[in-house]
């Protein structure tokens, strides 16, 4: 297995752009990543494009806009993990020796297909056909979490307050206006106990990363190259009465342990994290699964402000899915770009001081019978 580095990243703003098809958002992000990397576009030998709803051939349709034709392009879907799965594919195409320079792209335009509300899920799933959406599933997790550990509505609301506070410092975030616990709790209820601001928004964006092998990095790198220390992808296993719905995800924990082992690091070595906070309750649950604290203690990290800017393990400095946004296929690469910016010292007013190692986690989709669809964890370092 060879070393892999990130040469450059690029991203569009997150928001609602119904006039901008995926190919318009995607070409902007891909071009920005190539310019950030400072390489000639023709050096890219293979490209991966993560997306969920953008239709046939979205990667090829996007990359022809910047002259990248002929090379293999693989369109990748893994629910909310599509972007990180695209990154994992690009990483392994180099790590296992087949290619030297790859592009990982993620795109999604949701506002064209949805004005709001829960994402359309697969009606072949009986639960979906009976009215389960993602907000409802996470609401059940929240209900049980609150009962098990005495977590309050106010504590869940604090997660959103922190998220908006970070996003206020992030020029590309979708929701940048700070909020209060009271405002969050007074928002319309979607599924008890989750109010609307505790659910990530519908939005659009694209993001990309250019990766290369260790052998080429000294020749190609214009900015500080960021090393991929660990990268792992897994799928969810069956869940049943042997686990609580609010237990830390076995899928996330399993994937993370593979990434930690590859990196030779542990959770205590992470300076910052970009995690899949699609709903407020998701953030403490993921921090437990990543090993930042023990089961049931995720909410304490929020209370003690250890995961806020200035804390010892900053989680979602970008504002996360809740505030930066969750344009599904792009999310994983938006998270990746964020970590790269911090490691390079380019994160502006939200810079995590002395950031050396960061971790990215996405777990896509959710069905009651399975613990997520895709989970990808990457660890990046300077």
């Amino acid at each position, binding site marked *: 297995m060879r070393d892999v580095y990130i040469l450059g990243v690029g991203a569009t703003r997150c928001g609602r752009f119904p006039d901008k098809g995926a190919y318009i958002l995607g070409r902007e992000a891909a071009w920005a990543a190539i310019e950030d990397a400072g390489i000639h576009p023709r050096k890219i030998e293979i490209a991966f494009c993560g997306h969920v709803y953008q239709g046939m051939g979205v990667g090829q349709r996007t990359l022809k806009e910047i002259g990248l034709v002929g090379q293999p392009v693989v369109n990748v879907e893994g629910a909310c993990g599509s972007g990180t799965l695209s990154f994992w594919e690009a990483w392994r195409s180099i790590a296992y020796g087949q290619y030297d320079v790859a592009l990982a792209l993620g795109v999604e335009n949701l506002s064209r297909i949805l004005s709001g509300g829960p994402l359309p899920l697969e009606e072949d799933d009986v639960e979906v056909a*009976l*009215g*389960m*959406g993602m907000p*409802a599933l996470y609401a059940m*997790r929240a209900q049980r979490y609150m009962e098990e550990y005495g977590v309050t509505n106010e504590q869940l609301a604090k997660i959103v307050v922190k998220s908006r506070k970070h996003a206020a410092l992030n020029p590309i975030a979708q929701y940048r206006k700070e909020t209060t616990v009271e405002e969050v709790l007074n928002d319309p209820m979607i*599924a008890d106990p989750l109010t609307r601001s505790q659910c990530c928004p519908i939005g659009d964006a694209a993001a990309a990363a250019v990766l290369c092998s260790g052998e080429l990095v000294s020749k190609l790198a214009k900015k500080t190259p960021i090393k991929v220390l660990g990268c792992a992808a897994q799928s969810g296993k069956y869940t049943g*009465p042997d686990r609580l*719905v609010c237990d830390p995800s076995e899928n996330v924990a399993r994937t993370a342990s593979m990434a930690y082992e590859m990196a030779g690091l542990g959770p205590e070595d992470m300076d910052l994290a970009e995690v899949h906070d699609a709903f407020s309750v998701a953030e403490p649950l993921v921090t437990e699964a990543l090993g930042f604290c023990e089961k049931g203690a995720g909410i304490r990290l929020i209370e003690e402000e250890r995961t806020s800017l200035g804390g010892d393990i900053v989680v979602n400095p970008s504002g996360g899915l809740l505030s930066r946004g969750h344009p599904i296929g792009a999310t994983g690469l938006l998270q990746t770009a964020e970590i790269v910016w911090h490691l390079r010292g380019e994160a502006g007013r939200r810079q995590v001081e002395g950031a050396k190692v960061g971790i990215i986690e996405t777990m896509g989709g959710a069905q009651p019978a399975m613990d997520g669809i895709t989970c990808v964890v990457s660890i990046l370092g300077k």
Partner: protein
Amino acid sequence: MSENSNEHIFRPDLFTTDDNGTVRLVAGHCKNCGYYTFPKYLACPKCFSDDIEDKPLSPTGKLHAYTLVRRSMPQFPVPYGLALVDFPEGVRVMAQFDAQYYERLRTGMEMGVTVGPVRKGEGGEEIKSYKFYPVEG
């Protein structure tokens, strides 16, 4: 099963009603190792045998988690409850419950199965399927 053939039933294969009117969910039961799934899969997740039979679950299970859904896709009249119930056979099942029961529910409660409206069809017709209800109180 429904006596009225004009009723729109979603997945009638997933539940059965006995002569007493007790409704039970129909799971997949692996004849090789005894593992249950709901719904039935083609191969057993535990032992990979494909010798799976339909088998009704116990009539009640324990309430594991629940919520009241206030906003949903247009075919679901809100509010409605959604619950996860653990059956003694080792399966966790999700289904709706009537919103009227929400205040009454407590985690760990015994929940039974009934048949009731779950969504609206394309022409606005009522579609029924299996639902939960609290057995006690």
